[in-house]
């Protein structure tokens, strides 16, 4: 009885994916126990919720996900507009929407809703994807990204933009066009630059010369690079990182938790993290490559690359080669919302992997 129940529970679960995610969660606990021990209990709650979400989604068929795409996307956009009109301001940004019971951050929904929507759209046009379809996709992408960037929440905007772009890329946007876009993007920097907020510009400039303002804008990045560098090959040991324990690393349980890993576990710890992320991405890309339909392929590919984007942008910014944007280290940073989103993505990958039969040819 119990055995059969257990078998039913784990049936839709993809073990390699779960194993990599679980390893990351395990690492997260060890690191959090050093960086901010009093948050362990609430992070355990977050993980439980996220695992339940994962299991529920993994159970769903890709068709049901397809059906959810348009309503989810429209709801997301509607909420983003609502945020722009009535949102709560916190730390100078209008990101939250108070819905009576609790406050929600609609931009978070778009991280999943966006690839879902675009994958759905391309699936609908599968027989003959024309150039104007890319234009429609671009419009579907840029409207919510614009709303998020306006909040302002550059980190989420970049994540949503990239997740949508990955779908368009996998859908077959020609290389010429991609390269053209890249060149145009570089050319647009001088045009976009004046539109950025002062603090956003400062973050970019700080990247090139953090020591110009060591106690102000450069402080985060200087302290995190000191933490990483002083970790050396094998780290200072768990609970022994002076930068961490003496609170020189800002946001050390959330966006800058990678500095804690680096300081206390050294290059070795960083390598372990990189390898696990690679395994996770490799597994995701394998699932995408073997997915039966265009929708599932695009969705799996985009979600997998979203994991990559999270990891690369976060480690890049903490180690000082990318500007500081609010992107957490996937599965490691403390925080419920990001964790649920990530496990939702894992659940979708599992759903795609375990439901090949239900796909129409």
């Amino acid at each position, binding site marked *: 009885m119990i055995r059969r129940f257990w078998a039913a529970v784990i049936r839709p679960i993809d073990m390699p994916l779960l194993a990599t995610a679980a390893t990351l969660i395990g690492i997260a606990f060890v690191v959090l126990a050093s960086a901010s021990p009093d948050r362990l209990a609430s992070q355990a709650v977050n993980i439980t919720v996220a695992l339940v979400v994962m299991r529920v989604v993994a159970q769903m068929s890709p068709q049901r996900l397809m059906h959810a795409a348009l309503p989810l996307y429209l709801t997301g956009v509607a909420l983003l507009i609502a945020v722009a009109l009535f949102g709560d301001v916190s730390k100078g940004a209008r990101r939250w929407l108070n819905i009576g019971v609790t406050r929600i951050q609609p931009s978070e929904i778009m991280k999943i809703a966006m690839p879902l929507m675009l994958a759905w759209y391309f699936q609908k046009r599968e027989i003959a*994807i*024309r150039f104007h379809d890319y234009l429609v996709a671009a419009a579907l992408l840029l409207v919510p990204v614009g709303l998020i960037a306006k909040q302002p929440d550059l980190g989420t905007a970049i994540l949503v933009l990239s997740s949508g772009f990955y779908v368009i890329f996998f859908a077959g946007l020609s290389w010429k066009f991609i390269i053209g876009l890249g060149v145009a993007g570089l050319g647009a920097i001088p045009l976009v630059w004046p539109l950025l907020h002062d603090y956003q510009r400062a973050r970019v400039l700080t990247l090139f010369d953090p020591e110009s303002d060591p106690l102000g804008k450069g402080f985060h990045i200087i302290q995190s690079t000191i933490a990483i*560098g002083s970790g*050396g090959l094998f780290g200072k040991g768990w609970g022994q990182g002076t*930068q961490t324990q003496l609170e*020189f690393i800002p946001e050390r349980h959330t966006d800058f938790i990678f500095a804690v890993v680096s300081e206390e576990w050294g290059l070795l710890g*960083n390598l372990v993290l990189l390898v696990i992320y690679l395994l996770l991405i490799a597994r995701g*890309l394998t699932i995408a490559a073997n997915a039966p339909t*265009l929708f599932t392929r695009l969705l799996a590919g985009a979600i997998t690359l979203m994991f990559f984007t999270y990891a690369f942008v976060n480690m*890049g910014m903490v180690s000082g080669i990318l500007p500081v944007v609010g992107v957490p280290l996937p599965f490691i940073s403390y925080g419920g919302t990001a964790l649920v989103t990530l496990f939702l993505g894992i659940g979708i990958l599992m759903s795609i992997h375990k439901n090949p039969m239900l796909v129409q040819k």
Partner: protein
Amino acid sequence: MEFKNPEAGLEQFRSRINVVGALVLGCFAILLLRFLWLQVVQYNYYKTRAEENRISLSPVTPNRGLIVDRNGVVMARNYSAYTIEITPSKVARLDQTIDELSKVINIEPKDRKRFKKLLEESKNFESLPIRTRVSDEEVARFIANRYRFPGVDIQARLFRQYPFGSFASHMLGYIGRVTDRDLDKIEEQDQDENYRGTEHFGKAGLEQHYEFELHGRSGFEQVEVDSGGHAVRTLARTPPISGNNLTLTVDAKLQEIAEKAFGDHKGALVAIEPSTGGVLAMVSVPNYDPNLFVDGIDSTNWDLLNNSPDKPMVNRALNGGYPPGSTFKPYMALAALEYGKRTPEQTIFDPGFYNFGGHQFRDDKKGGHGTVNMYASIVQSCDTYYYMLANDLGIDNIAKFMRQFGFGQKSGIDIAGESEGVLPSQEWKRARFKKPEQQKWYAGETISIGIGQGYNTYTQIQLALAVATLANNGVMYKPHLVKTITDTRTGHITTVEPNPIKTIPIKPENLEVIKNAMIGVNKEGTGARAFAGAEYVSAGKTGTAQVFSLKGKKYSEGGTKEHLRDHALFIAFAPAEKPTIALAVLVENGGFGAQAAAPIARQIFDYYLLGKVPAAPAAEDSAGEDQ
């Protein structure tokens, strides 16, 4: 840009998966290179940076050296007490905070005033005391309410204390909070590092002159700090080395007797041991309480001290320039002998005046002293004898001779800011005045110099040094207050060796004549009343310095306002045969020297030579006669 074949689409998709895979590997490789750069190549640099972050070196202020008298009586010491301090930059509304604070601890208007003054003088990030010497009960109350006062801290600090209050204040001086001017001096001495945690600096007197001896070496504490700069724990500690202790040549008891002897009078006194130059007592009254300056003086007290007509902040012993009056006469007589202008036996006739250049110089004694030889001229203080002598010697001879005894020059005592005084000569007058008619020296001006009036003004340290040199047969020792400097750590004692700066070539027989006459002063002359019944033989000379010219009128004490009364002076040494103490006393507006100044000298000699402690301040000898 379209494809209808799903198989072709799948193939393209898979090729793009491969491209993406390569891209992912590439990006991770970049990260890995970055980690290698930071954690391997730059490891040592970042390790050092992390250590610098973590460890803060905080200076530990050394205990200031003590100042004790020659018998070990402590005159300046330190004690530890709590202070409540405010860092203005961390407090939004200062006045409101102080109001709130005053409900917890006792804050008086003078504390507020002092704080305001400190605030004006300080930089914003310093923590400044609002209350010092907080009681244990107040400490407890403050700690219980501490959370309400961000930017307000309690500190254990060492305080300088002058246990006898205003006693000997001009000699000891005081310390106060370090100012920019002090910082320049610290930099000059290359002591910046050593003074990093130091808040006080010697401002006057011995505290100032021996600042770098008294300060000691700062210790350092390696403290682990968090990002907010709060100390987490102490890692290592280099203890501070206390400053050196100063042992003075001064006898505190003698100093006390001397100060009390002045009663309510203003004035100055310097007593020197002739054979070493060691200062036994140095008085300038009125005094001030140096304790007021230690925590920063409040504006009320500061104004009170600075605006007082009695000028308590002026060290009269070193900075008060007064005409020497008749105390100049023994030196004039000695000059006459040395220059061969007089013999001891040679007499003059004093009709009570001396005419020169159409002007009559009056003798103080109506009708004059009659026939007077050198001995009588000193014992009776005959003016006419010296009017004539001054004219015979000439101003430049007088100046040349007097210069040897240190008149008109800094004595070199170990307290800064000593005045030079004025030893007039033709050359001095040329330099002093601008207009040619003023620059010329008139022979008539020499006459009053003979009796210690006119242009000349000297400090009491100069008078004391001169009489000590005379007592010591012409050998001049540099006057000094510090006898030994003790290294508190090693116990090593550095002795300030008596420094014979010169030997004035004087014939012993001439010296004998002068000394003998000065003994006569105290035996049968103007000092006889003050020294009646003394169990030792002393030598002295009274003097009176005119505060303003009477223009021919007879000076009458009762009819002259207190601040216009003459200054009383007295120089003396004892025992006459082998002097162990020599002194100069000045009593401002004290009238005749014999009246006000000589009795003070008597009390000092009685105590120093016989151990007699006087019962009351030196009584004014109203019947005394002078000049």
